[in-house]
């Protein structure tokens, strides 16, 4: 038997300033050349494990047990590890593709001819379609992520670590990355560890699947073995999707968009062109399309947060409901808007306005001028419903990703708007939060709300939507 590439022995890590261990009691041995998929609920410490293998844990934290890469501590391993993170914009530094890929080898102090060879090799390995001089700014999200992968491969890593590499990409971009990884693995034979919530895309590529629970590894085997194990199903509910209720009554019209187009200030191209939307009570509209097709822009226009460049968005009298308001939501006062159209943003942290979870939920109802007792009642009900009562006095920024997502949805529905617009709500969420979100949207729809949700997530669309709008980008 050959020596394993990576060995974690009773590994645990507690970040500085944290009371709880981010991960603990991990025993895991990864064979050389193996492609491993690491699954688990968010907060189970998957990213921490990747960073430990890469030798990049934050300073000041406490480590238990050991991590070895080729029998050496991670930082001192004879060959480097490569790490690709979820956000393609997180790590790109330079202006041109070739320079970007050369960044790692340059840091290693390699001579010029070797750097050139490695750049060509890495760009070929990921199937990069342009030359070295191609400007990074002109690449799409999927292409940028491929370039970042080439940057990691140029280090000639022995172990390649992928931390949710496709979660920010549209399906097409995701497949580009998958193919690039496959090509790179077949060329270099390196060991690969992938962390990803979307398992479908990696199905054919992985040799082994490991599922992390609250107390370390709960399942370990091939994909079919793991799928069958009951322990894994608790943390990994990938197939437990309830399809949307077959038939229900779609209600009155609430918000109508006619030939809407939008152009950002200072831009030449339209971000959105000629879109019609008809949002009705007790229905859910899925807005789908590639990155750059204008999904987020449309959510802002529908949310009354941006004025369409052409066309119109108008609220029906049913939505205005007695208020002395014009038809166009973007002209409404903020308080009038919050009571009628709720918006949930892609990044929950962009919307946190107070220092505790409780206050955060109270912002909307207070702005609407509700009495203290009514505000308390609404907030308490939401805290229970969203399972946030235990962290009611915590700072919203210190919550986990799933908790932040629930809070941001709660804050948007606290004013009981009849229209709710969501931008990529399932993005980066683990299966259990995913499931809760689907239930929540279905519940709101059942209560008569009109939902518009922009998403890449096919399964979410299938679970909640009864209408679809496909946006196509300029480029096509």
């Amino acid at each position, binding site marked *: 038997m050959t020596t394993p590439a990576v060995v974690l022995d009773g590994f645990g890590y507690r970040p*500085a300033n944290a009371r709880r261990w981010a991960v603990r009691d991990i025993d895991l041995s990864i064979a050389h050349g193996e492609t491993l998929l690491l699954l688990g609920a968010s907060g189970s410490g998957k990213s921490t494990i990747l960073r430990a293998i890469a030798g990049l844990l934050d300073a000041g934290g406490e480590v238990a047990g050991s991590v070895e890469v080729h029998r050496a501590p991670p930082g001192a391993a004879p060959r480097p590890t490569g790490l690709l993170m979820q956000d393609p914009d997180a790590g790109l530094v330079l202006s041109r593709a070739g320079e970007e890929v050369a960044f790692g080898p340059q840091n290693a102090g390699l001579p010029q001819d070797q750097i050139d060879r490695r750049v060509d090799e890495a760009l070929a390995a990921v199937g990069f379609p342009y030359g070295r001089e191609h400007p990074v700014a002109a690449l799409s999200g999927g292409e940028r992520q491929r370039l970042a992968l080439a940057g990691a491969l140029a280090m000639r890593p022995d172990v390649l670590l992928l931390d949710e590499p496709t979660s920010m990409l549209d399906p097409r971009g995701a497949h580009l990355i998958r193919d690039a990884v496959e090509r790179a693995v077949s060329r270099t034979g390196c060991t690969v560890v992938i962390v990803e919530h979307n398992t479908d895309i990696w199905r054919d590529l992985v040799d082994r699947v490991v599922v992390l629970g609250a107390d370390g590894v709960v399942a370990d085997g091939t994909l079919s073995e793991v799928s069958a194990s009951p322990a894994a199903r608790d943390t990994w509910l990938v197939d437990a999707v309830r399809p949307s209720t077959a038939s229900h009554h779609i209600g009155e019209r609430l918000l109508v968009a006619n030939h809407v187009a939008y152009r950002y200030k200072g831009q030449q191209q339209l971000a959105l062109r000629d879109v019609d939307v008809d949002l009705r009570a007790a229905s859910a509209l899925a807005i789908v399309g590639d990155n750059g097709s204008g999904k987020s822009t449309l959510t802002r226009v529908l949310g009354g947060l941006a004025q369409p460049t052409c066309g119109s968005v108008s609220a029906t009298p049913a939505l205005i409901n007695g208020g002395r308001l014009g038809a166009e939501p973007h002209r409404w006062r903020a308080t009038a808007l919050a009571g009628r159209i709720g918006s949930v943003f892609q990044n929950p942290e962009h919307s946190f306005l107070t220092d505790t979870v409780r206050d955060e939920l109270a912002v909307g109802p207070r702005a609407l001028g509700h009495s203290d007792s009514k505000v308390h009642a609404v907030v308490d009900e939401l805290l229970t419903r969203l399972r946030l009562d235990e962290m009611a006095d915590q700072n919203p920024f210190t919550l986990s990703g799933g908790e932040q997502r629930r809070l941001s949805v709660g804050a948007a529905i606290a004013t009981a708007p009849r229209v709710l617009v969501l931008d990529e709500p399932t993005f980066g969420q683990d299966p259990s939060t995913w499931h809760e979100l689907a239930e929540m949207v279905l519940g709101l729809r059942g209560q008569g709300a009109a939902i518009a949700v922009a998403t890449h997530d096919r399964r979410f669309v299938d679970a909640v939507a009864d209408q679809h709008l496909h946006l196509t980008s300029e480029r096509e």
Partner: protein
Amino acid sequence: MPAKGVVVSTRVSESTVEPTTGQWTTVEIVVTASLAVAFGVVFWAWNLLWTATGGAFAGLPPVQGLMYGVWLAPGVLAGLVVQRKGAAFFAAFLAAALSAVFGSQWGLVALVYGAVQGVAPEFVFALRGYRRPGVVVALLAALATGVGSLGLDLVLYYPTWSSEWKWLYTATLLTSAVVVAGLGSWLLARALRATGVLDALPASLPASLPGSVSASRNE
């Protein structure tokens, strides 16, 4: 402080990840630089406001000094957050350089201002040895930054003003420096600490803390 019930293996290869003391870590460099970049964005918004309000202050231009504090914040805030020799200078200078690169009406003179607005608070933080700067240090650092900028302004841009106007400008600018750049930066640093975003910074690690939230430690 080992957590209860955790079996720490006997083969412990490292008990803590060593906080480096000498060299700047990458995260410190990038965090300091992105404070500057974030203020570049704030400046861009503020710049529009500054030019737009110029007319409103036409009757008495020195009063526009009240809006000045925002320009002085990056150095003070970086010194409070990163607690390293040179952090204030790095952030203030970079913020100024970015505002020159991303198009401001000040051109390369912004670099001179950046240097002064970096050196002045640096001097104050150095007096405390860069250790745990509190609210007094923040106010003094902001005051020093204000004095430096005031000197440049009076010499370079407003040499022809009457002495009454110069005194008025001195009063408004320094008030703004202390309140906005001093108190404001201190409040921002405190609020940032409470969000946990600073936990990755070795320099911000207090000796021992009960829990993950290190707010209000900034005495």
